[in-house]
């Protein structure tokens, strides 16, 4: 098993330092999302991996191949790294048509092989019939897919995507967001995706690296990082306290029943189908806590559970509740005292269906 390991730093003027660290399986599919607010240095980290920027110190290696070694002054140009890189604005070659763009990096192959490869890419990304078009004659979504087809045509060992969906209009973004993970899964290669969009991160990522001001704040499996931020800083960047995988059981009248852990919740079903794997996202301030189960109410979800922990964070406290899954609520200090919330205490959590956000995740195998 080959691994891609990276641990490097790049300096900028005025004492700004950007760090990057990865440890991925290099010959298997996985998506690592580099997540953080705009301007935090995510793109720089990606460019260092691509070989477009040179780090100031550290190391990047894939298996036995060293891409960068600060101590030995070793630096491999992008041409020698066998990667697929997608910049934010796609950078399609305007003077070449779609087929020529896709074939651009295919070298040392017969014309027949190249044609076959281009055809494969066109059909995999639903671009049939567009082969002869110029990039300027394509919609944003089509351009994005052509750029992806071009970046992956050589079957690269590492796919790097910089804000792949940010240049798209909202409806197109939603469609492509669903498919992107499936497309990437066709390659036995890790993908690293830069995004500042929480929904995008949840839809795509296996692993997430949260960055802020050039520093890596936390990294790990996405559900774990998003539901257990290691510090207030990360929690603020992520902005959602509960993130748990779930499975859509039924969809009736626009409401979905989602099984998560040992309980089920009712959520709004926007563009969600039965049997779909989703991430269930709940913001801490949307969770209402009560001592007893109410008789009648408008909120569709009433979950009984026991408190795992209460951690004060400024005027609010972060209350973790075990209610079939782990739910985090943000409540005020007076509320904590009034309800006598402490670890082990029984509590009922109320949630409106509208407060539960479902993010579908494309599944590679069915």
């Amino acid at each position: 098993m080959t691994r891609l390991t990276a641990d490097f730093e790049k300096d900028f003027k005025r004492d700004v330092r950007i760090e990057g660290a990865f440890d991925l399986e290099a010959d298997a599919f996985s998506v690592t999302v580099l997540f953080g607010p705009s301007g935090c240095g995510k793109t720089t980290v990606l460019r260092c991996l691509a070989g477009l920027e040179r780090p100031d110190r550290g190391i990047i290696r894939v298996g036995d191949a060293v891409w960068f070694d600060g101590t030995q002054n070793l630096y491999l140009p992008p041409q020698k790294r066998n990667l697929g890189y997608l910049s934010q604005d796609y950078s399609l070659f305007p003077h070449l048509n779609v087929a020529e763009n896709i074939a651009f990096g295919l070298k040392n192959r017969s014309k027949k092989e190249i044609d076959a490869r281009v055809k494969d890419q066109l059909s995999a990304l639903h671009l049939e019939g567009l082969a002869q078009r110029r990039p300027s004659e394509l919609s944003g979504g089509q351009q994005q897919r052509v750029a992806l087809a071009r970046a992956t045509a050589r079957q690269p060992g590492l796919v790097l995507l910089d804000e792949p969906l940010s240049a798209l209009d909202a409806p197109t973004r939603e469609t492509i967001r669903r498919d992107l993970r499936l497309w990437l899964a066709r390659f036995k290669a890790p993908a690293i995706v830069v995004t500042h969009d929480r929904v995008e991160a949840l839809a795509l990522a296996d692993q997430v690296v949260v960055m802020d001001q050039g520093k890596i704040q936390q990294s790990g499996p996405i559900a774990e990082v998003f539901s257990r931020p290691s510090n207030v800083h990360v929690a603020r960047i992520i902005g959602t306290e509960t993130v748990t995988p779930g499975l859509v059981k039924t969809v009736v009248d626009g409401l979905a029943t989602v099984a998560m852990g040992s309980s089920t919740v009712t959520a709004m079903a926007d563009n969600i189908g039965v049997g779909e794997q989703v991430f269930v996202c709940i913001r801490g301030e949307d969770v209402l806590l009560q001592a007893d189960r109410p008789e009648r109410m408008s909120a569709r979800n009433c979950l009984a559970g026991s408190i795992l922990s209460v951690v004060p964070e400024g005027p609010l406290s972060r209350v973790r509740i075990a209610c079939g899954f782990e739910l985090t609520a943000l409540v005020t200090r007076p509320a904590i005292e009034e309800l006598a919330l402490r670890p082990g205490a029984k509590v009922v959590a109320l949630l409106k269906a509208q407060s539960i956000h479902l993010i579908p995740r494309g599944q590679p195998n069915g």
Partner: protein
Amino acid sequence: MDWTAILITIKLAACTTAILLALGLPISFWIATTKRRVKFLVEALVALPIMLPPTVIGFYVLVASGPHSPLGQAYESLFGQALPFSFAGILIGSVLYNLPFTVRPFTSAFSAVDRKMMEASWCLGVSKLETFVRVVMPLSWPGILTGLVITFTHTIGEFGVVLMLGGNIPGVTRTISISIYDDVQALNYSTAGQTSLLLVAFAFVVLSTTYALQKRVLPL
């Protein structure tokens, strides 16, 4: 009209343009893409002939290539002929004098190519040189063409540098503009007028064709 002078002029313009194409591409690409601080010095050096009178350039080339300079001696021992008052001499002067007229349009054409296009190509495994040929050149050729046309046309009308370096040797260094000057000196106004009109017509046709072509082809 002095047809020999016209032929010499066309030969001088064609050679100057060809040499400046070869020289201008790397210099301009370097200026357009480098992040080095010395760039402004190179830019200033290249642009110098715009500010200087051609006689100054001619003077320095004359001194540098004369029989008393190491450069002139080296040339003479290599080719058995002195550089000044030869075709090669006016060619060197012409190349130096026209450098900015080639490099400036080239540089602005290269600068207009989004660096991300080049990066995309590199990340597809394509070498820097091949990227230049397959991405940069196709995207900047209208600017390259403009630079070449301006250089060619500009050389056709060359006067000061040629006079300083080449003197006025019929069949060797006597160009159109010098023949016009001679005609005027000899009060031969009708021949001077014909030749001048020919130059005006040539310059206008070339420039208007270039601009017309550019407008049609530029929007990719």
